[in-house]
């Protein structure tokens, strides 16, 4: 019984939150890695693209709520999501037309593109703060729990409860659909294949008649969609604050680098590696240990490796380990 309780506590406090967080990071890292693969630079504006998409979605959510359009048990934000994606895609295509295209035609050094993306980041950050402000926004509505801790205890008779928030379940379902669609798109469709060809070898792709403008535009649209979805899921699960989204840049890039920059499969693996390490390192294991160990060995301390204030240190530590021992990442991305 104690072992079962320990397992349930582990699932409740570590596994379920880490899976949801990992799915959000994976979607974010997929967007960053796609831009890297096709456009060949690290997009520092990615976190703020997520914030922008989430902001638009929140505005639509409020509008729908004011007209009493809701999705019943599901959050209203899911209805608003397509509109958020549309606006973000248009905005991102606009920045590409006004800003990035000029440097692409010049074949500018990737470092210049990174600085340019810093400029875009500042602009997007300013726009988001101007429109919605810096305060925290909660926009989740609909059913709170798929399984609540109380129901679980009553059904199983265990001392520990297992709660699964509906936002966590939605995160996982949406992420699986997105990833399945993305891989189908990249591997089976003509446009997707041309994107991969462009990423592998630009010159050969151009020689074989691939239209680079189309590939770039499609990449931006997919990235905008992934960023908005990742941002909205994160915001539903936790809450929306522009600055937190900027800070997500570090775990997202760590995930993309761990998996191998430019490699979509790696981005997903990286997202889950970062999320699980972060949650496991910052979780206080006392509860689980008390169930597993005999009473005489019960721990006094919290058994927390690191306080949650240092969660960025975890992504950073993993990043350092990867840079030291396998700079191309687990799935062999691009290193030069």
């Amino acid at each position, binding site marked *: 019984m104690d072992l079962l309780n320990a397992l349930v506590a582990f699932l409740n406090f570590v596994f379920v939150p880490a899976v949801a967080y990992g799915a959000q990071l994976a979607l974010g890292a997929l967007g960053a890695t796609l831009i890297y693969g096709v456009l060949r630079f*690290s997009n520092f504006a990615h976190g703020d693209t997520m914030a922008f998409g989430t902001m638009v979605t929140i505005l639509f959510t409020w509008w729908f709520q004011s007209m009493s359009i809701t999705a019943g048990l599901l959050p209203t934000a899911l209805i608003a999501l397509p509109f958020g994606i549309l606006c973000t895609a248009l905005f991102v295509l606009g920045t590409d037309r006004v800003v990035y295209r000029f440097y692409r035609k010049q074949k500018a050094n990737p470092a210049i593109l990174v600085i340019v993306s*810093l400029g875009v980041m500042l602009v997007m950050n*300013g726009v988001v*703060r*101007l429109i919605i402000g810096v305060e925290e926004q909660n926009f989740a509505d609909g059913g709170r729990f798929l399984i609540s801790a109380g129901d679980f205890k009553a059904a199983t008779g265990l001392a520990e409860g297992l709660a699964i928030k509906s936002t966590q379940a939605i995160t996982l379902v949406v992420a699986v659909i997105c990833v399945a669609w993305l891989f189908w798109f990249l591997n089976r469709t003509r446009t997707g294949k041309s994107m991969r060809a462009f990423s592998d070898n630009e010159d050969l792709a151009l020689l074989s008649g691939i239209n680079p403008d189309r590939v770039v535009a499609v990449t931006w649209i997919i990235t905008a969609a992934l960023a908005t979805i990742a941002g909205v899921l994160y915001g539903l699960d936790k809450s929306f604050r522009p600055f937190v989204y900027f800070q997500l840049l*570090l775990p997202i890039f760590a995930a993309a680098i761990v998996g191998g920059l430019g490699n979509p499969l790696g981005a997903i693996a990286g997202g889950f590696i970062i999320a699980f390490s972060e949650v496991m390192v910052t979780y206080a294991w006392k509860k689980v240990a008390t169930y597993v160990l005999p009473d005489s060995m019960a721990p006094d301390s919290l058994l927390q490796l690191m306080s949650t204030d240092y969660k960025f240190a975890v992504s950073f530590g993993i990043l350092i380990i990867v840079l030291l021992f396998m700079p191309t990442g687990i799935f062999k991305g691009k*290193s030069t």
Partner: protein
Amino acid sequence: MNRTFLLFLGVAALYALTGFFQSWNLALSILTAVLPSTIIALGLNIQWGYAGLFNTGLMGFSALGGLAVVLVAAKPVAEGWDAGGPGILLGLFLGAASIAAAIFGWNHMEKGRARALTVAAILIGGFVLFRWVFDPAVMAVEAFNPATAGNLGGLGINPLLAWPVGGVLAALAAWGIGKVALGLRSDYLAIATLGIAEIIVAVLKNEDWLTRGVKNVISLPRPWPVPLEVNIQTQEWFINLAAAFGANPVTASSIFVKLVYCTMFGTVLVLLIWMLERALKSPWGRMMRAIRDNEVSAEAMGKDVTRRHLQVFILGSAIVGMGGAMLTSMHGQLTPTTYNPLGWTFLIWVMVIAGGSGNNWGAVLGGLLIGWLWLIAESLGPSLMGMVTVGMGDGPLKAHLVDAAPHMRLLTLGVILLLVLRFSPRGLLPEK
């Protein structure tokens, strides 16, 4: 009349206009706050401009400078030291020693499972030992009078000394991060420095025994020649001096203190530029530019590119740390919550890019100009937004726009950066 001189004259005019139309006190306080940022911009300029290294962790290195001021200048807390000082030092030493032992083991053992297991055992054992010694000591230190102390304090000596110490701390951090991230893709350094900056600021915010965390370390002493306003207001020579200018002693004392700061910061700035210009014109400077312009050919000429990059990265970060220490010693307090990457890192980037990367005078010009814009917008922004929205009726939209005026600064900063990169990528004062 060359371009450099005219542009500097123009910036000087901006400060003078602020003095005439607002107040000289405001103009001077902007200048005292901007000069250290200009020094930070110089540090970034030698990293980005000389070597093309992408440092997005300026906030962290400046914060280390701020930490140096606390460690050097704050009064020691004797009770705190008695309670846990040796324990904390021993804990830190054990932690560092186990990392060193792990690195030594990794480098000197035969590759294989035995090496991996030994290194892992050293690291895990070291971590347990570190926490076992460190945690109780920290608890003991923080338990002493947490409302006013709860920390170890510093050495209680002249904060002027903290400036080079800040440079050394930042240099050490830069060495560690450069060892790992240099020699790989250029973006890896950008992401690694972004991370280390977040972590350094998190440490300052949470390690109460070191910096009192969010409770802030206040009333740090002034660096040596700078007097306290209240002390000079009563001096006879000063009252006479103020009377000669026709100013009241209270305003005059505040202006006098700022002038002293400006002179000190200005002296450091001029010395730094002189040294950096000498270095740039030396064979070392030519080599750095050759490496930046074509790494492959420089490597073919037998230059160790990664080593040179590490060198210039450390040097630049040391200057950034020094600038950070100067800012903290001027404010007289360390407030970890004020460190944010937008104002501390990206503002400096705009300074360097707009001024002219690779040109030290350009970085200074950009620093003075963008710094002025940033701070003047802080005081003028809300009233400007009030003027723009004057035709609107009072309502939530107008209130929202006036409240949001500070965020216009970020937007403007981003637009300036993009415009400069597009239309004048070499900046106001291009590299010769």
